[in-house]
């Protein structure tokens, strides 16, 4: 049973460029959440996708956008990259129908470096 997978593992971009990160959820999961983890910090919630729609969003600018596909996989897009966007981006999947006891399974992350 494959867990949450993310690609690429590492990425180096230049300020002002755009980047797309990809996530495949754990088998059987229908919900994907994205988190940003800056160096030395805990993960911060960016947004969550379910049924191909953004259900909830954290305190991130519109430069951060996402998409969920019919197979539940997801993409995170960041436009006009800033140096401060350098971080580990974590994808987590869960099953929305489980109203109690829901938990999120995390992927290994994508390390984004903006120069």
């Amino acid at each position, binding site marked *: 049973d494959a867990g949450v997978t993310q690609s690429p593992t590492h990425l180096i971009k230049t300020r002002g460029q755009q980047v797309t990160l990809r996530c495949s959820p754990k088998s059987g999961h229908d919900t994907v959440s994205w988190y940003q983890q800056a160096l030395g910090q805990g*993960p911060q919630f960016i947004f969550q996708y379910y049924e191909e729609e953004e259900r909830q969003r954290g305190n991130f600018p519109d430069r951060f956008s996402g998409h969920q596909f019919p197979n539940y996989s997801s993409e995170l897009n960041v436009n006009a990259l800033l140096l401060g966007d350098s971080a580990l981006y*974590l994808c987590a999947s869960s099953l929305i129908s489980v109203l*109690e*006891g*829901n938990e999120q399974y995390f992927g*290994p992350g994508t390390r984004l470096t903006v120069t």
Partner: protein
Amino acid sequence: AQSVTQPDIHITVSEGASLELRCNYSYGATPYLFWYVQSPGQGLQLLLKYFSGDTLVQGIKGFEAEFKRSQSSFNLRKPSVHWSDAAEYFCAVGARGGGSQGNLIFGKGTKLSVKP
């Protein structure tokens, strides 16, 4: 505002010694509570979770945590630490039910070093 505080940034313990990592939360109601572990360059692995019932929860790798409502705490413990436990530990809270499930709030983490 909802928040999680992990007061200890870095803790060093000797192998075989006991461990307690502190976590305090600020939340309007009783939240879901989690402890995750992160090895260098890796994602997060769930150690244990509290949703309801017995306030002492058992997790993987010999870890346990106790929910104390009166102290708004959810401290992680292990009776005997192994060198492989060296990692960063994150406490997190999540809302109960409905559309708020996606939003886990994390503390800043506690880095655990283990002396031989």
